[in-house]
Every structure is written in structure tokens, then in C-alpha cells.
């Protein structure tokens, strides 16, 4: 899987911000919501079948998180740190290349 594009941001936030709580819940580091890994909310996870994918970018465009990036060949890559398992990508995929499966671990 391609590395999360947020990696540098996460490190910066954790270093500068840590557990600090500002009065008024003011967030001084832009984009710091990346430390909140929403993947933990997921019950069903999208399972991707590359053979069926026609690279139409529907999933990439419609993922609300967004937790889908594109690799060098423009195939979708799923970032399970942030994918909430909403199932929109699977529902919209015209070739049924994405299937929602219950996570077991």
C-alpha cells in the first residue's frame, strides 16, 4: 500500500501538539485532525479486486473521508487508518470491483 500522504502531518502534530489541550478547544496546527484515526469506527471494510477495476475514479471521487488515493498506475489505494467503512465506494463502483466484508480481527 502506498504510504499515507498524511504521515508528515501526523508526526508534526504529535511532536508540537501532543496531548496539549488549549482553552476553548483552539486547534493551532492546520490539518491536525489526521491524528484522529477514524478507521477504528469501521465494521465492514472495502475489499478491492484490481482485475475488475476500470479506473473510472468513481470511488476516489466519492469517498467522503477521503480515504482513497491513486497509485502510480491510477488504481485506487485504500487507507484503512481513515476508512470508516461507510460502503459508498462499493455501492458506486460500476464494475463491482469493491466488496464490503466484515472485519474479523
Amino acid at each position, binding site marked *: 500500500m502506498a504510504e499515507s500522504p498524511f504521515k508528515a502531518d501526523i508526526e508534526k502534530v504529535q511532536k508540537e501538539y501532543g496531548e496539549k*489541550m488549549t*482553552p*476553548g*478547544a483552539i486547534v*493551532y496546527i492546520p490539518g491536525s485532525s489526521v491524528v484522529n484515526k477514524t478507521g477504528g469506527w469501521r465494521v465492514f471494510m472495502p475489499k478491492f479486486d484490481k482485475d475488475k477495476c476500470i479506473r473510472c475514479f468513481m470511488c476516489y471521487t466519492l469517498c467522503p473521508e477521503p480515504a482513497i488515493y491513486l497509485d502510480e498506475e491510477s488504481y485506487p489505494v485504500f487507507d484503512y487508518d481513515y476508512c470508516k467503512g461507510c460502503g459508498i465506494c462499493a455501492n458506486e463502483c460500476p464494475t463491482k470491483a469493491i466488496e464490503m466484508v466484515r472485519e474479523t480481527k
Partner: protein
Amino acid sequence: MPKKVISGNYAAAYATKHARVEVVAAYPITPQTSIIEKIAEFIANGEVENLEYVPVESEHSAMAACIGASATGARTFTATSAQGLALMHEMLHWAAGARLPVVMVDVNRAMAPPWSVWDDQTDSLAQRDTGWLQFYAENNQEVYDGVLMAFKIGEHEKVNLPVMIIESAFILSHTYDVVDMLEQEEVDEFLPPRKPLYSLTDFDNPFSIGALGTPADYYEFRYKIAKAMEEAKKIIKEVGKEFGEKFGRDYSQMIELYKTDDADIVFMGMGSLMGTVKEAVDILRSEGYKVGAAKVRWFRPFPREELYELAKSVQGIAVLDRNFSFGQEGILFNEAKGILYNTDAKPIMKNYIVGLGGRDLTVNDVRKIANNMKKIIEKGELDKEIDWYHLKR
């Protein structure tokens, strides 16, 4: 110092002028209207510089505009009454949660229906859990002094919370009385420009407000506000003392005690009705009653320690509530009784529901209450706990 004969509402307006308020957003409602009319007049006459007046379409919007303005670091003011205050309710939580020291004058007015424009404290007391400090003024002078102190206390780096200054409908808002105002230089020295916790105009250090607080964090943010409220007690006393030293009117006591030293019975209450009660105390004392008055100036934060010290030394406390919590009792009574429960101070306490919707409380009424309290203390038991004193039977 310039003395003027003015209404409580004009006293509030002059205080905002002397405090060099930078943004006012307000919506008119009786009996608050003449506060914001006067402020508009200051602007029209060119008497104030750097004051942005934002006309809005509702009180909810007024408070929203105040929150935005205060988040830029501006000294911000608004005023309202009754239904208008109720409409602001959601935004009141916002101002406190975002730690913005907006100052508001609420002119206590009875909640409808039936429609009423007269004095009643239930509107402001219904906002007690929003995180606003609450100061109840007895007279026009206290409205003026209260607004000036409100900015200094609310903006203090250890507080950063909004403050409500509360005055009575008509009894203060529209009644003219002598107000001893300060010179502009005196106010400038007492109340320097605000040093905000954060400012939306600080473009070099961008930030977000209105963030999400997950179950992992929300709890701590609430604790921070609770701590700031507790800290505010110290700041209130400090600022009140400084005000007294500089200008001769001391506000270091959060509960003002009037002739309570040797009193057996103390009348406790808030706001303008305590003026009548103090007058009654003088008259009753000349008739041989050992009575005193305790005027709760600050309802939030509540001066628990001061109440305890008072309660230890008296036999009975008659709590006069110009408000009521349906299904329970008078709100000040409810709080005071609760605070004393875990202490060794156990005076007899009785709740008199008085003056709702502007009904007058007279010196004669206070005498009747004193007689009733005397009987209760002699017997050592209450006739009833909650007394709808004025009820037509």
C-alpha cells in the same frame, strides 16, 4: 468625578463607551432597548471612535455576531431581555465554550406567557448552566460599575469567560438616579485594552475554532471551564477590591452583608429588591428587630465560602426569590440550601417567592416576613418551606 442623573440602561450604555467597546451586536427588546439606542446615539454624534455596531435580525444572530467579533480579539458587548435571552441560549454555551469574554447586560424581564415586561429573575437564572458569570445589580450605580468590572474580570487571562450584568426591568432600566461616573482616563487606567487568548486576525498563526471534542477530550475541556469559574472568584474579589481602592466603591465581597453582624434573621436575595430590603432592615432595627440583609451580587460563580461564613452566624435565613423553578422551588433558595447541606452550618431556611412579574415587595412585606421568621425560629420548625407570599387567596 462626573455625576449624572440617568437610567440604569443609560448607565450601561455610558459604561460601554468608557470601556471603549469595539463591537456591539444587538436586537431591540423592551426593556433593554434604550441601552442600544443610546449606544447608537453615541455613534451618530461621533462621541465614540472605533465602534462597530452590527444590526442583526434576532438575538441568536446578535450573540453569534458577538462570538465572531470577540474571536477577533475585539471588546464586545450586547444587551437583551427575557424572550431575547432565551433565543440566545444555544449561543451562550458557545461563547463560554470558546472562552470568549463577551459582556452582556440582561434586563431581567418576566418570561411570557402571559406577556409581561416587568421585573423577574427567571430569564437570567434559566441561563445559569451556560458558563457565563452572573452579576445582579442593586441600583444604577452598580450597573455602571458592574459593566466596567465585567470586562476586566471576563478578559482576565485566568478567566476568559463571558459575563452577564443583570439589572431589573423599569425599577432600574428606566428609573433615573444619580450615577457617579468615572473620568475616561480613570477607566483607561483601570481597564487597559483587551489581550485576547487568541485572535482570528492573527494571520501568522492560523488556527481553527469549533473543533470536535471526542469522548477522549471533551471531559477535560469542561474541567478547564469549571476551573476558570473557580479562579474567577479570586479575580472578582481582586478586581472588586481594586475598584474600591481606586474609586471608593468596594466590590470585594461577592455577597454584600448589611447589618448582619449581630443579626438573628437575615434576608437573602439578589438585584434591586435588596434596596427595599436594606431600607426595611433600617426601619425594623429601629423597631427592635435583629435583622440584616445579604445581597448575593455574584450568582455565578456562586460564593459558597461567603455563604457558609454567614450561615454559621445566624439563626434563620429568609431567601427572597423573584424567580421560580417549576416543580422545585426558588432558584437562589435551592442553591443556598444545597451548598450548606454538607457543612455544619444549619440555620433555619425558608423560601419566600416574591415580586414575580414586577409585583412590588414593600417594607411592610419585609416586616411580615420578619415576623413569620421570628415565629418559626421560636418554634424551631418551619410552617412551610416554600411560601408564595403575595398569593391572592
